[in-house]
């Protein structure tokens, strides 16, 4: 998750700028610190100079001018470099080939909607590699359903906040495939710490296959019908959507293809049957303060519900 391992154009231009700023500030530090150390060593009180006041110097206009003008010039150079990168990143036009994703921050999970593709998912974002020959960057619209959040995948782009009543924008064009991690950067409430992010950068073929799979309605598995009944007769459906069923809640993550995700509870736990069961039984046990209530289900109902969740491929 280092900011010094950029894997997309905006992260790369920030990296280049940061290297420039770091070298300028390093030089300033070395010069000033050397002068300070020199002064401390050279002009220390010793038995030889004891009892004698040094020459009383009140100042020097030439020296003051020198150490005013030099920093002004440095600031101008740093600003020019900064403004260039601000413009390059913020004012980049969106190409027609771009993938559009709407990101909605919730306490304490991420909703991802691909309006042009008809895909809705949560917590694990899938985007394609953008090859120089076939650029296909991803443009994110950032919204919030409740409090402020911040979207931050250090290796792909700088962070941008998700603020209620405001539409923010962020883009990235990953150069290589892989899993990129991040997490909510703006304090958003009790479980700010476990609002984790995974971005899966896929090859264009894998991405298109993933989109096709996500576009399907929920799988119907007759062996899980008992669990489905539990799901649909409990308050689950007030908050969750399973496309193709009566469940169309928007408050919690879309579960249509839950099993296509590697984690649950916004990355707080791996997506295993044991964790699913723990999570359904007592969400606070995994993520204290999460907004999902414990539904007080019996052991039999829990087993059935886990089986239903596992059928949502």
């Amino acid at each position, binding site marked *: 998750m280092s900011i010094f391992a950029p894997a997309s154009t905006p992260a790369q231009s920030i990296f280049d700028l940061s290297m420039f700023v770091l070298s300028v500030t390093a030089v300033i530090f070395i010069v000033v610190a050397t002068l300070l150390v020199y002064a401390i060593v050279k002009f220390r*009180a010793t038995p030889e100079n004891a009892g004698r006041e040094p020459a009383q110097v009140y100042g020097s206009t030439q020296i003051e001018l020198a150490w005013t003008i030099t920093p002004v010039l440095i600031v101008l150079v740093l600003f020019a470099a900064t403004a260039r990168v601000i413009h390059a990143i913020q004012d980049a036009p969106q190409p027609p080939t771009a993938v559009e994703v709407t990101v909605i921050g919730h306490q304490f999970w991420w909703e991802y909607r691909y309006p042009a593709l008809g895909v809705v998912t949560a917590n694990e974002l899938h985007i394609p590699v953008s090859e120089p020959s076939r650029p296909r960057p991803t443009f994110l619209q950032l919204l919030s359903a409740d409090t402020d959040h911040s979207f931050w995948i*250090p290796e792909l782009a700088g962070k941008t906040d998700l603020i209620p009543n405001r539409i923010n924008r962020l883009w990235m064009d990953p150069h290589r495939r892989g899993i990129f991690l991040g997490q909510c950067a703006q304090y958003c*409430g009790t479980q700010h710490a476990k609002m984790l992010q995974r971005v899966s950068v896929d090859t264009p073929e894998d991405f298109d296959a993933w989109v096709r799979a996500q576009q399907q309605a929920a799988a119907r598995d007759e062996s899980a019908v008992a669990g489905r009944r539990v799901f649909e007769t409990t308050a689950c459906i007030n908050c969750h959507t399973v496309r193709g069923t009566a469940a169309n809640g928007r408050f919690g993550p879309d579960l249509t293809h839950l099993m296509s995700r590697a984690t649950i509870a916004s990355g707080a736990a791996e997506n295993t049957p044991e964790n699913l069961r723990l999570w359904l039984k007592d969400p606070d046990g995994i993520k204290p303060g999460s907004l999902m209530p414990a539904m007080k289900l019996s052991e039999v109902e829990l087993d059935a519900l886990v089986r239903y969740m596992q059928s949502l491929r």
Partner: protein
Amino acid sequence: MSSEVLAMQSARIDEPTWIETLHGWVTTVDHKRIGLLYILFALLFLVIAGVEALVIRIQLMYPHNDFVSPQVFNQMFTMHGTTMIFFVAMPILFGFGNYLVPLMIGARDMAFPRLNAFSFWLSALGGFLLYFSFLGGGGLYGAGAAPDVGWWAYAPLTARAFSPGSSSDYWTIAVLVSGFGSIGTAVNLVATIVCMRCPGMTLTRMPLLAWLYLTMAGMVLIAVTPLSAAQIMLLIDRYLGGHFFDTQAGGSATLWMHFFWIFGHPEVYILIIPCFAFMSEIIPVFSRKPIFGYPVMVAATVCIAFVSMSVWAHHMFTIGMNSYANSFFAITTMAVGVPTGIKIFNWLGTMWGGRIQFRTPMLFAIGFLFQFLIAGLTGVMMASAPFDWQLSLSYFVVAHFHYVIVGGILFALFAAFYYWYPKVTGRMLSERLGTLHFWLFLLGFHLTFDPMHFAGLLGMPRRIYTYEPGRGWDAINLIVSVGALIQAVAIVIFVANLIVSYWKGARAGKDPWDAWTLEWSMSSPPPAYNFASIPTVASRRPLWDLKHPEDPDSRYE
């Protein structure tokens, strides 16, 4: 028997009972006593907020640690930040200002002694209200709860939907009330410095400390008022159905950010400028030279004050402002580095060619110079807006502002304590304990705050109560926590030094440091009336002129 009665009566006349002493302190309008009240109040809160920091660090020592719950952790960082800024840094700096400014400008008290007392007690009430939230903050919602909205209390976390109960109200009212106290003291400082200087002390002959406090007080008037306004607006939202910041009813979350940071950024300079003041008194005395470039130092200070009013939105580079706004706040923020740099160069110029004595105040001053230099440079990095898109809201920022506040402000305050304690108590602080305190605190400080930068560079966001293992943050956090514990030990040594030296310290006499400003011309501690006869000065260093009649400053100024 009659002789016994007589003895008792005379004892009562000589030695006030503890209740009389207490009454005397509570009702005092003497600027020195109010100054001490401010400082003692702040030290108490320093210990409390320090303990909160330790809770945070113990929790973060290991990944997935469960020393405290997320709810408690969030309360801890909220209370730690709020307390340190509003109930430690502000009052302690006002305390030093209260104590020192009249003495250094040759006045017998502040301009408005009763306003002075009133302002202090408002601040004290604010601190009490903030901590009462632990008992009363839950309101009708059950058990007590301290605020957990972060010290910026960003909207809409403070809206009733996200913050039920009364914890946010305690935060709001505590900050509002102490803000009124700050405004009162700021008015007082401005009036005192403008109107009550002794004969001969023109503005250009004021000690730099007075100049810097004048600037700081002016900034308080400009910066604290919008914060107070925002707090009132928030109360209107919560109780009168207003929608300033209530996003669910169409209010604006970013409006709060602007209000908060137009206070919050100048606040950093409000805190650091008095520390520049301490440096500008201490470095010359221990270098045995006058301050280098006095007029430039004054100009740089005023320049910082002006420019710092136009930099606030650099706290908001990530909120999606357009590229022009981001560029504007990038250049103003970088520009404020120029006058700040000039100050460092002038202190260097003061030391250059001097005869530097490494007494405890000077040790802390030297620590300040290095650490403030680094803090300034990491500030320049974050002024570069795109770089900040990576650094902001991460542990890098936490490291940066603790470098300013601990490495800068607290080191300067320690220097000030060791420098002026003899004047206040008549006793020297122990040099041995002081040196130990310095080296131990220096070690703890760097163990704590140096690695934090790297945690931020590795993508660790701030304000998380726990973190995932295997992200490269584990070892860093362990070192940071160990450093925090070492700092705590150093603070214990400092407090012990303050207490023990009060009774056991060497007698200080009038002028233990062979210094040059007016406060060293009177007995230690100074009499209630300060000056038996108001002095007349002819230069910036009146005591130098007295000690060196053959070569007085007044000849050159």
